[in-house]
């Protein structure tokens, strides 16, 4: 696949791209930490699935997408939303159950969509978004548009029928969709060592006649290169690709997780492979960005998230008075 594609500037070699990459990854990290903190202090309810440690795959996959390209996301979707450009304030407002939230308090953490940035929605059903991504890609193909769709899902989703049905449809119709599997090793508690009988999820691409590639998901540049090549292929009309990004979630599956299925040593070992630290070291050593700029990006992320949380917190609570009329879209007549 790489032989078809011309060499592409690495994000870490270009100051503007490097800046955007780090900004996205730090915003995701700080957003998730803020959410974790609000939840721990009893200021946020419900449940949430944090993507700390997975910032590289979300950011790398979305880095060069156009605004009018689409994504579908998952229950662990805050990072995808942010990487695609969602409003942090509206995200935070949604999680806080505010009227100004993306879903007006009707959806919460697992259901944020943002048509302005091409986000067709996170999904509370494992693999639920994958056929929807194929369908959106079908729409763009039929409309004669050169938009592509990136569908995010986890390793667990690849054992659902929806994954297999969607990949087959995408392949037979050459749909402009990139299937991005964030393999974080666990479907809740069940390890991929036991849940699949192959070494790499990407091998499943062969069954549908599409290219499959496994990359280090904590190497944001590797994710960018693989997904960008797949995007080019899709935009050319050459059909779908399955990209597997191997990564790890530092936090538990959700709030109920006691981490009984993995060791402290394993978590500690993966923490040494922090995608943000690795990329900062790369851009510093290559001389792309200096220390002051790096610190500026970090500071900006902290301030941006703090401002978003404060603004969201001050917003009015979601209202129930028109809840019945929110079920159906209005019939235009």
């Amino acid at each position, binding site marked *: 696949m790489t032989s078809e594609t011309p060499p592409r500037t690495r994000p870490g070699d270009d100051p503007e791209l490097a800046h955007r990459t780090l900004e996205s990854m730090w915003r995701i990290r700080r957003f998730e930490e803020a959410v974790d903190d609000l939840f721990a202090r009893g200021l946020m309810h419900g449940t949430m699935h944090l993507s700390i440690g997975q910032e590289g795959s979300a950011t790398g996959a979305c880095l060069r997408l156009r605004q009018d390209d*689409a994504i*579908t996301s998952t229950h662990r979707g805050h990072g995808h939303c942010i990487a695609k450009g969602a409003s942090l304030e509206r995200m935070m407002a*949604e999680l806080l159950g505010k009227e100004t*939230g*993306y*879903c*007006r*308090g*009707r*959806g919460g953490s697992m*259901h*944020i*969509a*943002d*048509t302005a940035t091409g986000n*067709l*929605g996170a*999904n*509370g*059903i494992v693999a*639920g978004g*994958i*056929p*929807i*991504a*194929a*369908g*959106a*890609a*079908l*729409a*763009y193909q*039929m*409309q004669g548009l050169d938009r592509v769709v990136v569908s995010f899902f986890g390793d667990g989703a690849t054992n659902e*029928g*929806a994954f297999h*049905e*969607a990949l*087959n*449809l995408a392949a*037979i119709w050459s749909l402009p969709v990139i299937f991005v599997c964030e393999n974080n090793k666990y479907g809740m508690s069940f390890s991929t060592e036991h849940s699949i009988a192959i070494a790499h999820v990407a091998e499943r691409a062969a069954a549908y006649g599409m290219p499959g590639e496994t990359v280090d998901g904590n190497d944001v540049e590797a994710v960018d290169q693989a997904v960008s090549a797949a995007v080019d292929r899709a935009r050319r009309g050459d059909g779908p690709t399955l990209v597997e990004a191997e990564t790890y979630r530092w936090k538990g599956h959700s709030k109920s997780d006691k981490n009984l299925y993995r060791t402290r040593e394993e978590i500690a070992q993966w923490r040494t492979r922090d995608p943000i630290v690795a990329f900062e070291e790369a851009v510093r050593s290559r001389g792309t960005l200096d220390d002051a700029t790096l610190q500026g990006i970090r500071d900006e992320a902290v301030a941006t998230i703090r401002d978003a949380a404060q603004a969201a917190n001050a917003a009015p609570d979601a209202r129930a008075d028109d809840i019945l009329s*929110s*079920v*159906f*879209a*209005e*019939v*235009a007549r």
Partner: protein
Amino acid sequence: MTLTQHPHGAPTESPQTGATMRELTYSEAVREAMAQAMADDDRVFVLGEDVGVYGGAFGVTGDLYQRFGGERVRDTPISELGIVGAAVGAAVAGMRPIVEIQFSDFTCQAMDQIVNQAAKIHFMLGGELSVPMVLRTPLGSGTGAAAQHSQSLEAWFAHVPGLKVVMPATPADAKGLLLSAIDDPNPVIVLEHKLLYRQSGPVPEAAERVPLGQSVVRREGADLTIVATGVMVSRALEAAETLSAKGIEASVVDPRTLSPFDADPVLESVAHTGRALLIQEAPSHVGFMAEVSARIAESAALYRLLAPIRRLCGLDVPIPYAPALEKAVVPQVDSIVREAHDLVQGS
């Protein structure tokens, strides 16, 4: 494409609208709705198993493939979850898909996309997206296809907020309700009884819409109100003629749309006749007619009842194979006559 010529007879005029009417079969009426919608709107397309050259498992898509091509009359693999999911995705991305599922029983394979995705996206995402998708599927028994190809699952769909559910009982409604379903910005489940496909009736030539959410009184009579859905509407009307010969006059109300349900015509009729006989092919337990019964019981019509509300439904069994068994488990014209007679004579 010409819609004025038809082998079934000379065009006539609708007394209500002045529109030109022709006799069409139910399946021809469904096909004509799809053809007119596709001709009017590039966003409309059909997808499903064997809808192309084969013309659909029940022949409903017919020659649409020849007229509109394989892009817009799109054959799919046997992959119900994927097909419905693709329709949901195409709908949120600006298309107006009509997905055909060969038998309503097979919607079980696609339930996540119908119930968790299509029905909830608009609400759950705060109105950010909507799903203008139509899912057409044949339901019901009477073809000897046994338990996995004969169910009536309308109550499942009607129980899910966010889905609209229609059961057209006549060729004209099959066309008019489908056109409204295609226009609607929400997911609409259209349940077509497979025994109706070959029934004929007058159908407007123009693309006239029948609004969703409007029950219709098919027949007026003072002695009892029969509420019936799908194929039971024509059976109820036939039974009403037999009853009339015995001096019993029945009103027959057809809800047409189960969600949203327009209860007023039912309640008004029951308040007038004082007797309600509720008929569905689906099993009785927790069926749609249980809801109709509750609506009557919750309304002032309750005080006008001369006898308890009575339901005549399918037995609470899977649909069996042998012809005599299959007939025995769902209401037939003679059992409707008998129930109506008992209801009126006993009160």
